[in-house]
C-alpha cells in the first residue's frame, strides 16, 4: 500500500456559536491548534490549501503568518473542498512542491453571511431561482426519488440522525449534544418534503485545520500520523437533462478510491460521511459500496452506523448534530476520522482496532450541481 502523505495535525475549533470573535482571530486560533497538535511552527508551513475567503488567499496567508509558501491551492468543491485537499496536498508533497501543507477553513454563518455563497450565479441558478429551488429542496428531490424507486422510508433517514445524535451525546462541544429519537425526527416540522427539520445538519460558526506532511517530516515528529492512501473526486450536474438523482458522485469516487488503496468496503473500520442532510449519508453509503444501489435504507435500519454497529460513522455527532462550520462539513468529518485512527475519539464511541477510515465529502447541492470526494486514511502503523 502506498502512503501518499501523512496527517500530522488535526484541530477542530470548539466554537459553535460566535459571540464576537473576528474571522482573523478564529483563523489564528485554528492554525495554532493544528500546529500544536503536529508539533510544528508557522515557519514550517510551505503549502496552503483553502478555498475562497475574505480578502483572498494572500490576506489569509498574512493572518496566518505564512512567509515561505511554495505551493498554494484554492480549489473550491463546496463542503467537500477539505476532503479533496487531502489528495491535492498529498500529491503536491509527492511531487516535491511542498513538505508541510496546511489545510484550513473557518466561517461564521450564524453571525454573518458567508463570503463563499457564490453570489454571482451561473446559468443553472437562474433556472433554480425562478422555480423556487434552494439547498434543502434539492436534497429533498433526491430523497423523494430514492423513496419512489427503492422503497426507502422517512424512518430509514431518521435513523441516520438518531445514530449521529447518540454519538453527539458524548460530545459536550456538539451544538445538539443530546439523543434524538426517530419519532422526534419524523414529527419535526417539514421544510421540503420528505425532509424535515431534524433531517438537516446544524449550522455552526467555527472551523478547523489539518497539517499534512511528507513521510520524512512525519518520521521526525513525535506524533501519531495517519496516512493518506487514496483520494478521488468528481462532479455531477444536470448533464443536458439526463438526470439520475440516486446516481450520486460517490458511485464514481468510491470505487476509484478503493482501487487506489487496494482495499474494499469490508476493510473499512470507520466512515466519516458528509451529512448535510440524512439523504446525503444514505446515498453515499450506496455509492461507496457499503450497500447496493437502493439498499441504503435497509443498511442503516439495524443500527449499522452506530459506534457498535457494522460501520460506525460520524462518532463526534457529525454535521447532523455536532459541527458543520460555514455550512461546510468536510473538514470536521476528516478530523474525527483522524481521532479514530489515533485512538483519540471519545472512549464511548472509539472503534476498537481502527485501521482504515473512509471520508466522503459531498459539496454544493446533491440534486443540481454537486461535487463528490472520497479519501481513504490508514492508521500510522500501516505501511
Amino acid at each position, binding site marked *: 500500500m502506498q502512503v501518499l502523505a501523512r496527517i500530522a495535525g488535526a484541530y477542530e475549533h470548539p466554537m459553535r456559536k460566535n459571540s464576537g470573535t473576528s474571522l482573523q482571530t478564529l483563523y489564528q486560533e485554528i492554525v495554532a491548534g493544528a500546529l500544536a497538535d503536529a508539533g510544528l511552527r508557522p515557519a514550517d508551513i510551505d503549502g496552503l490549501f483553502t478555498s475562497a475567503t475574505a480578502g483572498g488567499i494572500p490576506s489569509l496567508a498574512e493572518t496566518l503568518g505564512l512567509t515561505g509558501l511554495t505551493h498554494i491551492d484554492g480549489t473550491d468543491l463546496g463542503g467537500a473542498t477539505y476532503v479533496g485537499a487531502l489528495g491535492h496536498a498529498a500529491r503536491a508533497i509527492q511531487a516535491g512542491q511542498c513538505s508541510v501543507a496546511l489545510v484550513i477553513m473557518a466561517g461564521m454563518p450564524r453571525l454573518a453571511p458567508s463570503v463563499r455563497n457564490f453570489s454571482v450565479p451561473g*446559468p443553472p441558478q437562474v433556472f433554480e431561482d425562478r422555480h423556487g429551488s434552494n439547498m434543502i429542496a434539492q436534497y429533498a428531490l433526491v430523497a423523494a*426519488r430514492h423513496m419512489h424507486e427503492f422503497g426507502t422510508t422517512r424512518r430509514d433517514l431518521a435513523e441516520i440522525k438518531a445514530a449521529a445524535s447518540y454519538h453527539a451525546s458524548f460530545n459536550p462541544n456538539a451544538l445538539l449534544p443530546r439523543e434524538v429519537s426517530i419519532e422526534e425526527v419524523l414529527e419535526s416540522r417539514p421544510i421540503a418534503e420528505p425532509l424535515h427539520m431534524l433531517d438537516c445538519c446544524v449550522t455552526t460558526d467555527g472551523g478547523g485545520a489539518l497539517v499534512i506532511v511528507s513521510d520524512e517530516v512525519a518520521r521526525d515528529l513525535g506524533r501519531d500520523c495517519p496516512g493518506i492512501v487514496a483520494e478521488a473526486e468528481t462532479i455531477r450536474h444536470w448533464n443536458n437533462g439526463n438526470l439520475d438523482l440516486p446516481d450520486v458522485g460517490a458511485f464514481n469516487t468510491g470505487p476509484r478510491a478503493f482501487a487506489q488503496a487496494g482495499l474494499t468496503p469490508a476493510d473499512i473500520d470507520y466512515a466519516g460521511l458528509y451529512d448535510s442532510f440524512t439523504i446525503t449519508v444514505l446515498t453515499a453509503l450506496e455509492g461507496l459500496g457499503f450497500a447496493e444501489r437502493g439498499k441504503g435504507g435497509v443498511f442503516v435500519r439495524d443500527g449499522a452506523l452506530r459506534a457498535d454497529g457494522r460501520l460506525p460513522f460520524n462518532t463526534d455527532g457529525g454535521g447532523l448534530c455536532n459541527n458543520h462550520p460555514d455550512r461546510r462539513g468536510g473538514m470536521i468529518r476528516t478530523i474525527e476520522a483522524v481521532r479514530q485512527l489515533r485512538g483519540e475519539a471519545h472512549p464511548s464511541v472509539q472503534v476498537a482496532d481502527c485501521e482504515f477510515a473512509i471520508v466522503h465529502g459531498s459539496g454544493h447541492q446533491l440534486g443540481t450541481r454537486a461535487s463528490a470526494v472520497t479519501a481513504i486514511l490508514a492508521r500510522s502503523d500501516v505501511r
Partner: protein
Amino acid sequence: MTTEQWTVSGPGDVPEAAAFWAGLAEGRIVLPWCEGCRQTVWLPKAYCPTCLQPVAGSQELAGTGEIYSLTVVHRGEGAWKEHAPYVLAYVALDGGPTMIANLAGDGTGLAIGQRVRLAGVGPLGGALFAPLAE
C-alpha cells in the same frame, strides 16, 4: 449582491435562454436542437455540450411529460417565502430533457410518475405543470 437581484438580468441570465423564456410565456417549450447529435440542448446554449458545434435550430416539444421527482417546499427563501407551500419538481419531458419545474397546487394528489402538461408560468416566471386530465 443577492442571487435574487441577478435573476432579472445578470451574468447567469444568458441571451441563449431568451427563446426558452419567451416560448414559456406563450405556453410553449422551445429548446435549442443539435441536428448532429439529434438532441435538445439543456440548459439552452449556443453550442451543443456534446459535440460543441453551433446549435443551428430549435425544437418545440409537446409540453407533456412525467413527474421525475417532487418536493413540497414549506419554507421558501427570499421572494418564495410568501408562496410556500409550493411544489418544486423535475419533469421528464416527452422528447426532451428532465427539467426543473413547478407543479400547480400544494402537492395534494401529486405523485412521481404522474403524467403532466405545461399549464402556464409559476409565481416567479418558471415552468408550471399540472396533471394531464385522465
